[in-house]
């Protein structure tokens, strides 16, 4: 019987949907390749961004370098935010849509510390101290907001269907956003310019990089390594992994589930706080809506990298940052599409769709609990 069924099963598996998906995959690949290289010898056809650069008409080599590094810096921050989504998804199995606001809270409150340091002249005279303290303020704020959110809004919903905490998280997102608007107003808070030591460019392996971008890339990479070590080597980290694997069994083994879940929110919040200061250092404008789009992009990064996977979150962030920075000019400009920069969000979210079509579990694969795998 099995032998008879096998050919039919295979036939069903490669049905219309599969054919369509393969057509999309091939079409996307052709679109990207033609956008970059053009169609040589076809008059009036897509020129290709690479051809335009080589012929001196398009974006210069220096500009490609700037775009690449800018994308890395942006992506590093997406990765830091994505960690919060991924960690919470790992232990609770739902998307905490209020995480963007956790990020915003750290960025907004730390503005007052940075501004006070700048006014007192410490921002310039003791940049490491000032920046370190500002980061601590942001981490503390984001951690408190994240833990309170979990304690007040999510803990009581622990046993309810996933849709309920999901909707609650959207509500919390608006609540936090407009609470901060009420507290700090709707004007834009301008962070002080980066201290003198972070002005200008540094040369790394012969490549000139803006020092602020370099700082962002290095700080996020170090934070990522520290977090990874924390989760991999400490007792609490093991408890987090145990709960992510199977919450009930972990509880039976003596793990304090509530405490570890709070810790997970706290760790995600702290990472978001660091990202908040780095964001402000790079873009220098924060206000109550600062968390919305980075939050969405962070969530996208978590899915692209593989939801529940810490390394995946960071890699996904880098991928999204690079794609949205380089993608529009690299692919769309080659097709002659005007005003391509406004399409960078379209490119980023298209990348999400394409990654899921090529690799449904994300770049580094999902980490799901026993219940979800089951």
């Amino acid at each position, binding site marked *: 019987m099995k032998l008879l069924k096998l050919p039919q099963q295979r036939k069903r598996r490669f049905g219309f949907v599969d054919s369509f998906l393969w057509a999309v995959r091939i079409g996307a690949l052709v679109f990207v390749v033609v956008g970059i290289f053009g169609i040589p010898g076809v008059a009036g056809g897509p020129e290709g961004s690479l051809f335009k650069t080589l012929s001196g*008409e*398009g*974006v*210069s080599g*220096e*500009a490609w370098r*700037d*775009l690449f590094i*800018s994308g890395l810096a*942006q992506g590093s921050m997406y990765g830091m935010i994505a960690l919060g989504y991924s960690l919470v998804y790992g232990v609770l199995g739902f998307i905490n849509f209020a995480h963007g606001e956790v990020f915003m809270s750290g960025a907004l409150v730390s503005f007052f510390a940075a501004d006070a340091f700048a006014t007192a002249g410490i921002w310039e005279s003791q940049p490491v101290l000032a920046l370190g303290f500002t980061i601590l303020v942001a981490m503390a704020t984001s951690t408190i907001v994240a833990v309170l959110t979990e304690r007040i809004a999510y803990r009581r919903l622990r046993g309810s269907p996933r849709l309920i905490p999901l909707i609650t998280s959207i509500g919390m997102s608006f609540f936090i956003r407009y609470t901060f*608007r009420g507290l700090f107003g*709707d*004007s*834009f808070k*301008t962070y002080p*310019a980066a201290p003198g030591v972070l002005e200008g460019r540094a040369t790394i392996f012969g490549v000139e990089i*803006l020092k602020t971008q370099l700082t962002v890339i290095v700080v996020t990479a170090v934070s990522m390594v520290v977090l990874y070590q924390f989760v991999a080597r400490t007792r609490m980290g093991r408890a987090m992994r145990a709960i992510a694997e199977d919450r009930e069994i972990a509880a039976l083994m003596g793990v304090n589930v509530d405490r570890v879940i709070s810790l997970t929110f706290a760790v995600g919040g702290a990472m978001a706080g660091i990202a908040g200061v780095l*964001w402000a250092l790079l*873009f*220098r*404008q924060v*206000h109550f*809506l600062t968390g*919305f*789009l*980075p939050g969405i992009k962070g969530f996208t990064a978590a899915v692209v990298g593989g939801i529940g996977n810490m390394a995946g979150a960071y890699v996904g962030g880098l991928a999204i940052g690079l794609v*949205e*920075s*380089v993608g*529009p*000019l690299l692919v769309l*400009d080659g097709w002659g599409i*005007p*005003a*391509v*920069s*406004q399409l*960078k*969000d379209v490119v980023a979210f298209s990348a999400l769709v394409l990654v899921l079509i090529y690799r449904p579990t994300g770049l580094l694969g999902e980490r799901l609990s026993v219940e979800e795998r089951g």
Partner: protein
Amino acid sequence: MSKKMKFRHLGVLVLVFALIAAACGDDDTADTTTAATTADTTADTTADTTADTTADTTMAPMAFPPEAGAWGGVLIAAGAPVEIRTLQAISESVAFLGVDQNRGTELALEDFGDVLGHPVNLGTAEDDLCLGEGGASGATAIAAQEGVLGVIGTTCSGAAFPAIPIFHAAGIVLISGSNTNATLTSDFQGNAGENWMNNYLRTAHNDLIQGAAAAIFAYDNLGLRKMGTIHDGDPYTSGLAGSFGLTFTELGGEIVVATSVAKEDTNMVPVLTEIAAGEPDGIYFPIFQPAGDFIVQQVGGISGLEDVQMYGADGLITPDHFSLPETEGVYYSGPDLGFDANAGFTGETYTNLVARYEAAYGELPTAAFHAHTYDATMMLLFAIESVAVEGPDGELWVDRLALRDFLYNISDFAGVTGTLTCDEFGDCGGNVVSVILNLDSDDPQAGIGNVVFRAGKGAGGEVVILPLG
């Protein structure tokens, strides 16, 4: 027949008697009920129902309310408020514009006081979100409310597009203090804009003047020949960038890159890199905060754009933006704000208005259009008071069409922004624009007042250069 059926028949019988009793009842009772509330009423249904029985017999009895025009009218009961509403961008990233405008309206209400003994009620402020969707939903919410005579808004031109027809269908006039898109009114050559409807007016300038004046300044005064333009997809920003580009090209300049950003963008490296490929002398970016902030802050880090001349517009004329060190040396086109000594309809000077604004809200105005909105509100209240007919018992009757016609015929109205005269397409503002230069980010108010170029609308709709004084 069951007991249940008997009760049902009894109920029907009671209902029939009630209907007969209501039909035979005294008309006065019905009138009293109507007068106790504010209601939309048309002449066909009400003009004949009420007569002034106490009127002097030697005079011809005057019907109240009078016959309504084609748009109907609103009967306001004695002591009941006159209902007007606001529809501005009061959330999301341009809230600093809409909140500022609502404050202008609140101060105008304070100055104008009651309308013929009736207080003015603003109701719940609606939010246009600076988007078409917000304009549509806000307008729908307001149009569904009873007795609303006029609306002050919207903040953004894009929100006005869907709001105007919704208000038009409800007979409600819409007066904006900040919409500047040319298609909302006319091209100043006697041709209506594609989005114009005859219930719409504005006290802000028309971007045909601003775009052309900004281009003349860039080409003639700054000597720029190759420009890049950035808009954010909003009709205000795209219309202004387009108007600038048109005149700049006519003058002999070249728009090397015309591109756009999303309002929520923070990383401007891609768009600035795209522009850098065109090697422009300057960049005209008539967009809003925070995108405009990010552009001036990041442009210095882009290879090839280190020395480019940056040039913004009125959406960025805010103390917050001008306090950025990177805005030093940046020019901005916008409405002419030199109206400190102007006295408005009630005699209030703009200087006093700003002082009261600061006292009331604890900060200086956050944007440029609170004064235009103050004037828009004054104009609406004055028009309501002028066309309202007082009833024998303290009621008011306001004919919607008469109100619209009155507004369209306003001329030489004293506003804090200058003298307002509405043309046949609802352009009421002075249409004087200026270019300002920010020199010191530590003193943003000085930058906002540092006018380096003024221009206005000539008799034929053309741009006329005005003296700086």
